[in-house]
């Protein structure tokens, strides 16, 4: 029996992405269509670093499909504390669950873990690497609000360490998109990521900027991420730079009326609360979309006859 894993958004073709998003739309429109479909199914949650939100979203999705979860619990109280390897942990918990969700601080952790198990494994974040379920809910939100083709998107903030950004940018190369990356110079996209994007889309759809001003009027979607204080040596430097990448009602005077603003949340002060009540704000909707999208992914991965990819890898 073939089982797919979901490790990176790079493994997904346009067709695969559309399969997932279409299924999420069906579920969103009629959640009862899949209710109880995965009764008796157990999803193993292995969070080696805390992420309450992502974990709750997976738990909700599994329970809405009729299944339940088994949770490794915080690392402090598990065998990991005693020095157990990830490879051993996943091989043990594989025996308890029908699929695994892994979040781990090291890059490549999900790739490696998937080589040790036979049940479907979903990457819920591997250090600075990938976070493909976030990408799928981002894509879903973009599709609902602006469409994925003929799209001009600005992605702004910490582009260096933001794995959400890397995964999303890569996935968008499957569509007719113009991507603008807006960040301070010290937080630009890593060259690895730029290399991949150019490999994928001949570079024509990719532009990097240090200011939002010049391209804001042309954007259909603005995806904002947090610039973290710890990336800067001192408070003044942080305040000065981060301030240039915050948006409020004044900033948006220059924007199109149809501009959709997204944010993976939690936010601090990147987006002023006054924007929440405008038609631009899509970030709470985006967070809610995590459930139908994860339901769609789990339903596809857990059904023997479906899967998310046209062909098995390796």
């Amino acid at each position: 029996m073939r089982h797919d894993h979901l490790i990176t958004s790079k493994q997904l073709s346009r067709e695969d992405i559309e399969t997932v998003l279409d299924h999420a739309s069906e579920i969103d429109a009629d959640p009862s269509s899949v209710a109880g479909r995965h009764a008796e199914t157990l999803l193993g949650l292995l969070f080696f670093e805390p992420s309450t939100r992502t974990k709750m979203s997976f738990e909700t999705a599994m329970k809405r499909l009729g299944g339940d979860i088994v949770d490794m619990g915080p690392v402090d109280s598990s065998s990991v504390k005693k020095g157990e390897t990830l490879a051993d942990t996943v091989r043990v918990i594989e025996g308890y669950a029908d699929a695994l969700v892994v979040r781990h601080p090291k890059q490549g952790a999900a790739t490696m873990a998937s080589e040790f198990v036979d049940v479907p494994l979903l990457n819920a974040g591997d250090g600075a690497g990938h976070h493909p379920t976030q990408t799928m809910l981002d894509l879903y939100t973009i599709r609902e609000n602006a469409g994925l083709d003929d799209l001009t998107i600005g992605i702004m903030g910490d582009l260096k360490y933001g794995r959400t950004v890397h995964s999303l940018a890569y996935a968008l190369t499957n569509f007719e998109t113009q991507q603008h990356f807006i960040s301070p110079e010290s937080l630009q996209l890593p060259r690895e990521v730029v290399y991949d994007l150019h490999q994928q889309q001949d570079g024509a759809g990719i532009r990097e900027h240090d200011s939002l001003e010049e391209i804001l009027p042309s954007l259909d979607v603005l995806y904002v991420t947090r610039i973290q204080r710890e990336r800067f040596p001192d408070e003044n430097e942080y305040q000065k730079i981060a301030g240039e990448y915050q948006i409020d009602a004044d900033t948006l005077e220059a924007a199109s009326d149809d501009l959709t603003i997204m944010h993976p949340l939690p936010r601090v002060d990147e987006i002023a609360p006054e924007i929440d009540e405008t038609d631009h704000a899509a970030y709470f909707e985006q967070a809610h979309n995590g459930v139908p999208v994860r339901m769609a992914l789990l339903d596809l991965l857990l059904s023997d006859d479906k899967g998310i990819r046209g062909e098995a890898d390796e």
Partner: protein
Amino acid sequence: MSDEHDHHDGDADHELRVSKIRDGTVIDHVRGGQALNVLAILGIDGTNGEEVSVGMNVPSNRFARKDIVKVEGRELSQDEVDVLSLIAPDATINIVRNYDVVEKHRVERPGVVEGVLSCPNAGCITTGDEPVISRFSVLEDGVRCSYCETIVRDEIASLIDT
């Protein structure tokens, strides 16, 4: 046989600089300055008494300068040749038996190298205690970790797992 046989081309004059070997391997057409890295890849540091001659920055037809490494009593394994190809993509390997070149081949870049290089990214899962063998895909101008996707273009030799 190659058209660039050592003993009959323009390098002949310089042949004297590096002594002949009886049985072993001559790695020729190594890019100038890479000879010591070639030795590092082969794990040769002289402490085991191997007889090694190195010619560095020898004038060459093919490059302005090349290095030559001759190792007595040692034939290279395929793994060694694979890694060699990463830092010396133009090298020719001559297997010598009883003073004659019995085999001569160019190195070929493999698609993947496993277990030979270690990832320079401290945040990579392969750098911890996990029971995982490093794996790098070979790009046109570097190597890339199959786990964390870090690309290394320069100083690949420094990643060699010793």
